[in-house]
Structures are given as structure tokens and as C-alpha cells.
């Protein structure tokens, strides 16, 4: 087995026992990147020199005996998390030359833990997309089928893990951007509770929905990475002032007696037989473990996508106003006067999907439309949150597919935004309610494409998701299947 094929937990033990050094591991991953990156295109920026320097520092730390569980493990971060001194573009031309003068809080945590930061992973421009096709740097390919999309917007992070171009990755999830690519690339990905991971240094798309989380091989690795990044950050006013129980404590526990809810609104929409089959099989596995299933209703989730496409673009229209050519990033070369500089810079710097959402949001917030759009969407959001709250009276977690179907072809939905938006039908309500959700592999389609299943828990019950995911992965081997590249 190649070094890049091991999980972080396995590598942690190998590093600890000095069976391998972080430098050897990092070199192996960099070599893998050298071999497959031209096919996959998981990265926007790779900094091999820095990665090797970090690996050497990690080796010293391991030798001196004060290594943490993730010291020396190579990781990719999504291109929307600020890395001090390294170009961070958010997948956009408008930030193609932006070098942050500071580290995002999560990046700081990775550094403190002695992890090896390989570089920044590709993403949909400003995290707006479900396929990683809207990136200014070109699309990322799905390692399972290079003609297909990896899901988005954290497509680069998911593909990097699936292709062995990183052991772990961080992604961000606003409407499904971790879970969808996790499902499409056959990896484990979790969106924690809103407020559980600091957003400081995460380039904002929709501030009330954005959340950082892990993408990795299995629930064990997810637990290791979550234990590093979950925590209160005084620099983020929306970060919850609380402490977190270690997720690793929930890796080998029984799920016997737990109840999973099946929302009929989600299952009614399932028209892909292979996805249905995989989900049914997963359900049977859980039943063997003593899990009970109960059907329930989330009456307002059908309005989730509509409300999301008012709230997220509204916030985005304001969040993205700062890209004006004045201070950093792109400035158009030719312009006549200040207003024209704004216009030309933004016309040149943003892609179509970003422009579409800025316009949607600007419209929704405009005087005379605010009540009909933004305020109504905010009310729907409250109702969806209540739906979940009620549902959790009858179950410990909710069980459903992550996406309606496996990964689609590159270009298939690029000219049909509505079809693209519908990809997130099962993931968006989770962001609307601020809940934690995990996607793990449930099986493969007949043409060898991963199918993901999603588990959703009440606020701050990340440990319950780890418990459920790891119990499933202990009795199944879907998560161990690798894309052949």
C-alpha cells in the first residue's frame, strides 16, 4: 500500500512508532500530486517547499515527544480559508493575486497542531456552485470518473482526499458544499453545527450559513480533525461560547436502541433507483445494529431551496461588495473614473454564477422588495428550524440520501442553474437550521460512482454523528473503496 492511501489515524500510529517520517509521507503525497493532479485538478495552489519545511518541523516535534494526534499529517485547505503569505483566491479571478496578511483561525489551529499544509484546494467561485465548475481556475474532475464533476463547492478538497492528493482536507459548507462533494467522491464529510467552528478567516459567501468542516477517508479521521477545529473563537461573534466533548470518544460505541428519522418529504423526491437501493441497504445495516427507523415529516423543507436562494445571495451581495478594485485583488486596467473602475473590475473579476447571485441578492434586499423576499425567507428559515426541532422529539438523528443522484457529467447542468440548485435539495435545509450533518459513502452505483448518505443531528451533537458513522463503517467497507486513477 502506498503511504497516501492510509488514513490519518493509521499514519498517526506509524509516525508515532517512527515507522515513517512526516517528510517521507509528505514527499509521497507530493509525488502522488505530481502524478495525478493534471488529471484531477484538485488544487489552486500547491506549496511543496512550505509543506516539506512543515513536515521537517513536525518530525522534530514527533522526535521530541510532544506531538499531537495530527502532527505531521498532510492536509489541503479549501481556497477560501486565508493562509498567511499564500495566495488565497476563493476560486475567483477577482482575488487571483490576493495574499492574506493573516491566517484563518482554523489554519492557525492546523499550524499549531503541527500539520503539514499542502496548499489550497479548488472550489466553485466564492463557494457558489455544486460542481466546482464555476472556479476561475477550471473544473476539478471526479477521481472516480474524470468526465464527471466532484460535487461542490468543496470539490477540490473532496477530490484531493479521494485521489490520495491529501490525507485530510478542510472544506466549507453553505448549502451542502462539504457533504455533496463527499458523497460524489466517496469520502466522509461533515458540516458541523453553525457556530461550532470559527469562521474567522473564511472568505464569506453567506455568513449566516457558512461553516467549515472536515473531508476525510472515514469517521475516525473526521473525529480527529473535528477535535482539533471545534471550539470557541472570540474573534468570531457567531462562534458558540461552549466546550466540546472529544469526538474520538464516540468511535467504538454501540448504536443499539437509537432511532433514525426518515423524512418523507426527502424520500418522496427520490427517483434514482440506484440511490434508493444504496440507501435501503444502508438502512438494513443499521437495523442489524439495533437501530430503529421512524417515518416523519419536515413540512417546510420543500421551501428550503427557494428561501436559501434569497438569503444566501442577499448576504453574498453585501459580503462581496468589498471586491471593488480599491484595496486588493484585481483592478481593471481600463476605466474612466471611480464608478467605472468599480464596474469594470467587477465585470472582469466575477464569473457568471457569482454575478447572478449578486444580482439576486441585491434585488431581494431592495427597498420595496425586502419584506416580500428577505423577510419571508427568514420566516421560512425559522419554520424549517422548528420542523427539525419537532422531528428530533421522535428520533436521535435524521437519515436520508446526501444527493438525489450520483455525480453528473461536467457541463451537464452548467446552463441550467435551477437543475444545478436542485442538487442541494437534501443538504440546504440543514444549513438553514444550522444543524450538523455528515455524509458517508453508502455504496456504489452500477457504473462505479459513489452514493452518499446523510445523517443530521440536533445542534452541537457532532459526537452523535461520529458515533453513527463509525458504527456503520465498522460493519461495512464502502468507505474503504478507492477510485482507481
Amino acid at each position, binding site marked *: 500500500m502506498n503511504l497516501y492511501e492510509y488514513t490519518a489515524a493509521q499514519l498517526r500510529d506509524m509516525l508515532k512508532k517512527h515507522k515513517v517520517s512526516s517528510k517521507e509521507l509528505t514527499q509521497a503525497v507530493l509525488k502522488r500530486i505530481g502524478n495525478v493532479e493534471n488529471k484531477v485538478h484538485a488544487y489552486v495552489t500547491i506549496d511543496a517547499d512550505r509543506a516539506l519545511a512543515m513536515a521537517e518541523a513536525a518530525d522534530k516535534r514527533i522526535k521530541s515527544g510532544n506531538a499531537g494526534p495530527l502532527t505531521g499529517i498532510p492536509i489541503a485547505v479549501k481556497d477560501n480559508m486565508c493562509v498567511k503569505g499564500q495566495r488565497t483566491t*476563493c476560486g475567483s479571478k477577482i482575488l487571483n493575486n*490576493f495574499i492574506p496578511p493573516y491566517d484563518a483561525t482554523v489554519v492557525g489551529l492546523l499550524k499549531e497542531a503541527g500539520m503539514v499544509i499542502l496548499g489550497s484546494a479548488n472550489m466553485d467561485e466564492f463557494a457558489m456552485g455544486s460542481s466546482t465548475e464555476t472556479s476561475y481556475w477550471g473544473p476539478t474532475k471526479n477521481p472516480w470518473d474524470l468526465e464527471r464533476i466532484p460535487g461542490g463547492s468543496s470539490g477540490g478538497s473532496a477530490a484531493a482526499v479521494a485521489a490520495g492528493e491529501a490525507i485530510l482536507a478542510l472544506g466549507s459548507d453553505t448549502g451542502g458544499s462539504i457533504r455533496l462533494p463527499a458523497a460524489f467522491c466517496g469520502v466522509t464529510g461533515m458540516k458541523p453545527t453553525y457556530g461550532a467552528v470559527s469562521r474567522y478567516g473564511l472568505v464569506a459567501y453567506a455568513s449566516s450559513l457558512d461553516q467549515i468542516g472536515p473531508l476525510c477517508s472515514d469517521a475516525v479521521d473526521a473525529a480527529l480533525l473535528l477535535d482539533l477545529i471545534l471550539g470557541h473563537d472570540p474573534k468570531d*461573534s*457567531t462562534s458558540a461560547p461552549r466546550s466540546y466533548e472529544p469526538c474520538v470518544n464516540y468511535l467504538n460505541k454501540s448504536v443499539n436502541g437509537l432511532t433514525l428519522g426518515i423524512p418523507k418529504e426527502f424520500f418522496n423526491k427520490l427517483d434514482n433507483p440506484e440511490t434508493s437501493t444504496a440507501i435501503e441497504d444502508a438502512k438494513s445495516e443499521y437495523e442489524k445494529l439495533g437501530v430503529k427507523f421512524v417515518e416523519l415529516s419536515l413540512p417546510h423543507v420543500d421551501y428550503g431551496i427557494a428561501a436559501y436562494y434569497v438569503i444566501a445571495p442577499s448576504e453574498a451581495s453585501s459580503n462581496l461588495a*468589498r471586491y471593488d478594485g480599491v484595496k486588493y485583488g484585481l483592478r481593471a486596467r481600463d476605466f474612466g473614473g471611480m464608478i467605472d473602475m468599480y464596474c469594470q473590475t467587477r465585470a472582469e473579476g466575477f464569473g457568471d454564477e457569482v454575478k447572478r447571485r449578486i444580482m439576486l441578492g441585491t434585488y431581494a434586499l431592495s427597498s420595496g422588495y*425586502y419584506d416580500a423576499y*428577505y423577510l419571508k425567507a427568514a420566516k421560512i428559515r425559522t419554520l424549517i428550524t422548528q420542523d427539525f426541532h419537532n422531528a428530533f422529539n421522535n428520533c436521535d438523528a435524521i437519515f436520508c440520501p446526501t444527493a438525489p443522484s450520483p455525480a453528473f457529467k461536467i457541463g451537464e447542468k452548467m446552463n441550467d442553474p435551477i437543475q444545478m440548485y436542485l442538487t442541494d435539495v437534501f443538504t440546504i435545509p440543514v444549513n438553514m437550521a444550522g444543524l450538523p450533518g455528515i455524509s458517508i459513502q453508502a455504496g456504489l452505483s452500477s457504473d462505479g460512482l459513489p452514493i452518499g448518505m446523510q445523517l443530521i443531528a440536533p445542534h452541537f451533537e457532532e459526537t452523535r454523528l461520529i458515533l453513527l458513522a463509525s458504527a456503520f463503517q465498522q460493519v461495512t467497507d464502502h468507505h474503504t473503496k478507492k477510485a482507481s486513477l
Partner: protein
Amino acid sequence: MEYEAVIGLEVHAQLQTNSKAFCSCSTKFGSKPNHNTCPICQGMPGVLPVLNKKALEFTVRMAVACNCAINEISRFARKNYYYPDLPKNYQISQYELPVAEHGWVDIAIGDQSRRIGITRIHMEEDAGKLIHDDKRPVSYVDLNRTGSPLIEIVSEPEIRTSEEAAAYLRHLRAILMYLNICDGNMEEGSFRCDANVSLRPKSESKLGVKAEVKNMNSFRNVQRALDYEIERQTAELTAGGRIIQETRLFDPAAGVTSSMRSKEQAHDYRYFPDPDLPPLRIPPELIEKVKSEAPELPSQKKERFINELGIPPYDAGVLTVSRQLAEYFERVVELFPHPKQVGNWIMTEFLRAMKGTEEPDLTCCPVSPEQLADMLKLIENGAISGKIAKTVFEEMFATGKSASEIIKAKGLTQVSDAGAITEIINKILDDNPAELEKYLGGKVQLKGFFVGQIMKASKGKANPGLVNKMLDEELKKRAC
């Protein structure tokens, strides 16, 4: 038709916190351009705001002083507009649910009191500054002020004249300064004001169409701008015209307002709740703390000076214009408990020496309250005359020396030695026999002449009271 002006004022006051509203950068004025900045106030991608607790406390202080109801939950909102001095291209402000609402202040117009309603007080962040190159078509952006905490105090449209407007503004400013939350500097822009002005027929209650007037950076300019605007609107309406809703800029040089933008060109700020800042819960303990620590406000101090110290109302008004001056006065009274006398001195010699500014900056006053009290004691115990004291005070002000030092060095000690005075009296009477004869013959006005001569001979140092008394005795003696 007779019209009545309806004026509402929006005051922006910069809070004197050490750090900015949502980051830890210094708010110091006068640093090198862009020196007091960080990724947060520069609006870098990915940064987040964290509210300065001191700024909230200062806002609550003002809300309490203006008798406002404080909202238990308030919200920050984003006000979206593009300008290079606003790096995020939105300003963190408040829209629905400000910190405080429904307050009032009582202002004095002559000897009348008027209650002006306060609609709301909300917090927001300041913008930066653009500096335009005068040689090339280039502008520079200085973000030092960006993100400094401001409060906006919005009055009800209850002000009727430019005099009332000025009185209201002076009153608010005095409160802010008494609370130690704003330096009140209008030139530097830490206290600024916009006005909404409309007219309506005197008997009517419905509001007319308003114009918003901006760019008035002194009390005088506020009055000039409002007077002009009222006159302009009156002329327009009298001539049968209509007022259009617009924003007008005051030109201090020309003394006129002119249209900046019409309602159609007005910004749509697309306010919405700032998702980076959760609803702000103002703890009742904070309100209690602010109330318990509240200083005496100018109007309360003025009342006390009038009622307890017997200071005339006008003087009490002057003495309480600034907290510094009032506290100076009170300290002198503490050491020399004759409030009226102290008040007189401060109102005349003291303020004259402070160059007659309405609001003397006492931080650079060379005469301490202790020194002034010592000097007043010297007058009282007869060591110097009131007249000499004026000279002594000027010298104290110029040199910072104490009164007794100056009196000693210049030999200004009042002569109260009866022997020495008798000697001078006798000499003057002997030297002026003709005048003495006329006096004794009934021309008693000549006493003034003798007093003058005696004081002159004593180089002004003779105790005038004693001179008068002893001269009377001597003249009586000579008449016999």
C-alpha cells in the same frame, strides 16, 4: 400665509474609546495615514467584527442621560453603499431595533425650557477619509478613522427655529462631554450634525416636504444654514412653488445651501441584519452600572448652582457650559466658600484671561483652582486690594506663579499699617492747604481728591478701606 419651520437633527458623535468599534485598532487622532488599521478595519476577505464593549457602555451612558428606553435586544444592520473610504462597502449600523429609543432632553431658550424628543440613539462605525491630490487626478485613502465607534442621535421634528437647533446641539454636546464619551470637537468632526428641514402653515400639524441639509461644521454654520434654508423654503412656498425632497449641502463661504441629490437619486441602502453579529443583548446590570455611575449633568449642575450656591441663572449657565469649567469653579468654592465671589472672578477676569473662548480648555490653564482660591483669600484678609488682585491675577496667568510669590516679588502687599497711613494722610493734607480749606468750607466732594492723592502716594498699596476711615477721622480733627 405664515409658515412654521419643522426641524429634526441627526447628530453623529464619535465615542472616545481607546479602540475601534469592531477591532482592537487605536482610535488616536493624527497618526500617519493607515497606521491605525488591521485586516478587520481594512475590510480584508474573511475578517469578522467583534463589538467593543466600551462603545456599548458609552452608548448606554448617553441613552440614560437622554431619558431613553433601552432595548433589551438590539440588532446591528448593514447599510450598503459604495465608497472608497468604506472598505467593506457597507457600514455596520443599526436600523430596526437601535440601542435606545423614545428619549428627551430639556433645553433652555432664554429663561424658557423646551423639551425636545429623542427618536433613537444607535451605534455605528465611522468611515475613513479620502485625500485628493491637488496636482494629479489621484485620490488617497486613509483608513485610520474607519471603524471608529459613532453614535447617531436622532431628534424628533420638534425644533422650530435655528436658535433652538443651536441650543439643542450645545446641550447634547455638553451632555456628551460631561459623560466623558465624546470630545465634542466639531472642526475635527467628532461631533457633526445633519438637519431635516421642512415648513408647514402655522396652524397645520401635517409635515411638509423636507430637505436634508449637510456639511455644517460649527454651531454658527448650523444656524446660518438653517436660517438660509427656512428663508429659501418660505420664498419658494410664498411664490407658489413646491419643495422637493432632496439632500442639500451648505456652503459656508457663500452662506447658501445647494442641491446635492434628489430623492430619485437617493441611495437604496438595502439594510439587513448583519449576519456576523448576533442580536445584541444589553444586560440589565450594565444599565444599572451606568445609572449608578452617572455624573451630574449640566442641567442638574446649573439648577444646583442656582438653588444651593445662589449663583444667578445666567452665570450658572456659563459656569456649567463645560464639565471642566464647572469642576474648576466647584474646586475653588470648596477651598474658598464664597460662591458668588468665585463666580464673579471666573466669569470676568478668568474667562477674559482664557481668551474669552466660550469653552476654555482648562487642561492648559496655568492657574490652578488652589492658586485662584489662595488669591481670593488674600483679597479677603486685606493683604491686597481687589484692584491689585487683577494685576496679580494677570501675572499669575502669565507666569504660573502663586499670588503671594508675585506680591512679594513686586512689593504689592497692601499697606494696612495705621501709622504709615497716618503719615501719608498728614503729608497730603499739609501739602494741599488750599483744597483742605475749600473742603472745610463745605466742598465735601474734595474728599475723593485726597483719597486719590493718598493712594497715589502709597503707589496703590494702601488699604482703601483703612484710608477712607482714617481720612474721615483726620478731617474731622482738622475741622475742630
